[in-house]
């Protein structure tokens, strides 16, 4: 790890994707996820495709080790569909990807769009049988007159092929749009959450799921909040949390009762009356919730800040980090262009000492929980020299703009970093910037 007091210096490692004037909608990356060892990195896009990258062996073993990933597999996970009952299109955009822990040589991941979750098996094949009796090497049928001896086909090595096949399709369980999936620590069940309900699935069974949370009111006119994210506890198989659009997080224990409508804990920070505005409720909506790796904390992302909560304390978060406070005065225009509804994700480092989240203008923010230092970095293609440490960026609010600073009004709100991932064991991060995937690694 870093030796200079814990501060990580990030260097550019790779960028995936092309530079386009007009980015095709289908190429926009919609989720990023490392697997449990960090060996594989999966991305999903709006076109329903999943691309898996694998750590480059040579770069991993190099000294200093580099974080480089090569394309390992790509497949079409979801297709657009049409819901006849409600006369609505169902987007093929991949909302979430979650890996299962690896148990044998094959990899499994869950990918979901708004309505359907699929379990994919990603397997390698590097051998094929050769030496058939009835066919020759080109596959043409051999003339039976020429067949004089009997031979046993043997396996010969071939070019590595990675096959992706859907193993389970979990469909027709959600009336509303699925926003989260989370695999349980028991690796046998997982939950899927839509706006109003959370279902519990067994990975083997596709035609049944248990509904464990239902916040749909009897009268839809009384609907005031929706579920925005949900996650299982990393170690306790009966605990999960879900966040709402009103800024509350509820922790539920499945051992209490079958339907976990009554929460075991509710985490809510009282509103700061000085900051109250028309937009208070909108910006308090939590877009992402993530447990720390050690299971003692969880992190929530609302529009302007990231909060770290101790699971033992419900009254308020233990840490709050401002992501882009300079936008607080611009909320009206952000409401105008719908940016106020952007759903940013957040990530823990492997040792839970750092947290990271995205912002606009292709900026992303890093927070060191120990030293309380924060930095703003940019994902851009200006690579001067390799192994150059990324220069911190600064946004200036007031009148006087210093030389390298960028003014709030010049921020590009179309370049938003919503999806990020942090390698579970090393300091390698993956940043999705629209249609490009950036990979940065720490200098050490």
């Amino acid at each position: 790890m870093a030796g200079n007091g814990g501060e990580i210096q990030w260097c550019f490692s790779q960028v995936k994707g092309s530079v386009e004037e007009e980015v095709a909608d289908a190429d926009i990356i919609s989720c990023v996820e490392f697997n449990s060892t960090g060996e594989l990195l999966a991305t999903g896009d709006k076109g329903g495709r999943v691309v898996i990258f694998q750590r480059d062996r040579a770069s991993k073993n190099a000294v200093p080790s580099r974080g480089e990933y090569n394309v390992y597999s790509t497949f079409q996970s979801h297709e657009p569909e049409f819901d006849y009952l409600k006369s609505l299109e169902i987007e093929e955009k991949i909302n979430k990807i979650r890996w299962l822990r690896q148990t044998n040589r094959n990899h499994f991941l869950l990918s979901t769009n708004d309505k359907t979750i699929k379990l994919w098996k990603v397997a390698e094949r590097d051998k094929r049988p050769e030496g058939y009796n009835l066919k020759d090497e080109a596959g043409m049928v051999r003339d039976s007159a020429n067949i004089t001896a009997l031979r046993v086909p043997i396996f010969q090595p071939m070019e590595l092929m990675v096959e992706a096949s859907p193993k389970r399709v979990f469909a027709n369980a959600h009336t509303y749009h699925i926003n989260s999936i989370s695999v349980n620590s028991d690796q046998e069940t997982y939950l899927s959450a839509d706006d109003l309900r959370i279902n519990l699935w067994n990975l083997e069974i596709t035609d049944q799921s248990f509904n464990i949370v239902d916040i749909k009111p009897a009268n839809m006119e009384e609907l005031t909040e929706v579920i925005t994210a949900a996650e299982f506890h990393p170690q306790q198989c009966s605990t999960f949390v879900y966040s709402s659009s009103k800024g509350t997080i509820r922790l539920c224990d499945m051992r209490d009762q079958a339907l976990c409508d009554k929460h075991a804990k509710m985490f809510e920070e009282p509103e700061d009356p000085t900051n109250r505005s028309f937009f208070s409720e909108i910006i308090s909506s939590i877009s992402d919730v993530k447990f720390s790796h050690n299971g003692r904390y969880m992190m929530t992302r609302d529009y302007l800040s990231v909060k770290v909560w101790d699971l033992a304390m419900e009254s308020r978060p233990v840490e709050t980090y401002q992501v882009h406070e300079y936008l607080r005065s611009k909320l009206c225009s952000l409401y105008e262009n719908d940016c106020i509804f952007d759903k940013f994700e957040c990530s823990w480092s492997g040792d839970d000492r750092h947290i990271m989240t995205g912002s606009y203008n292709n900026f992303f923010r890093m927070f060191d929980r120990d030293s309380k230092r924060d930095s703003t970095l940019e994902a851009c293609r200006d690579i001067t020299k390799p192994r150059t440490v990324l220069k911190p960026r600064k946004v200036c609010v007031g009148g006087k703009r210093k030389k390298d600073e960028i003014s709030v009004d010049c921020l590009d709100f179309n370049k938003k970093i919503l999806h990020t991932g942090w390698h579970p064991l090393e300091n390698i991060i993956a940043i999705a910037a629209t249609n490009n995937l950036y990979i940065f690694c720490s200098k050490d």
Partner: protein
Amino acid sequence: MSQASASNMEVDPPSSSGVQPSSGGTLKRSNSAPMINMLVATSQSVEVSPSSSFKPADASRLRRLSSSNMGVNAASNLPAPKSTDRVNQIKHEENNITDRETQHEKEVHYSWQVTNSWDGLSLATPDSVMSESHRRPRSFSESLHIMTSPSLLCGSPSPTRIIKQCFSPSMRAPVKNTTFTPSPSPSPTRKSFIRCSGVFRSLSPIATQAPPLKRKLESDGGDRFDYLSPPKKFHTGPSTPDRNLPHPLAHSISSSSLEESSPEQTVPRSCLPPGPHPRPPLASHPPHPHHHHHAQSHSSTMHHQHHKAFMPVAADLTDIHMADSETSEFVEHTEMSDLGKHAIGEHTSQGGGFTPIHPDRV
């Protein structure tokens, strides 16, 4: 007012209104909603960012709320919730199902009208224009949105079997789905399995059925997910074997390549197989050679337009070859081993970029 400059983000009302933006620039009371409406009205011309186009937000909002255009809502008295606030979206969806259905029915009706009236179309003369105009929808806000979604025309495809999608990391390209079976002579129905079932959605499901893949060759003892039969409710029909162009993310720039000034590890995009091909990225819709072999014409073409189609490379010619004879897919295997020697940067004379399997056949 706020129209001073396009890049001026300050949309707080002028100080004369009495609301002084505090350090946070916030509005003090929640019943300032009317104030917001005023701001909304006055800030129409202000852009937040000079280069913004907000199409993704609009598009997603449209997509989420309704399959038809928002312009139609004027006719149905449904003010769509402006925001992408999920709560309001859900309420709106629940309350307006019948209206959406009506809109959808209209679209289907018009699209059928258009397709059925192809024969009646001819070069417009002053006389014929008058007679045909009545068949067209009068309102321009009701655009003719032809749903190319295959499920629209053909219903949900019968879920049949697992179709593997294969990818070769060394070639950085999806490869044809080679059904890997221990039996050298596959059953006759398997030849249609090679094709994407998606192309033949309008065919009877029976014609495209093939026995499920045999997985006996799994030498790893099988996964826990293997022992169950293929999922019955498998609801997709990907035309994946046709998608042989690499995903845009295969295009990569690494810092290590900058160090050693080695060539970029990219799949060359400038070279594509000859013939109809899309320009990258893969959003355009080339005609598919397969379609020549089937009398599906209309529906499959429309279906194909819907797919963000990968250009089939030379591999598909062997596909055709295999369909005609009952030779197995092992044609692929021998060529694949040859391909191991081909670096990505090599181009054969035909200009095929990725999998020059049969240079002479192209």
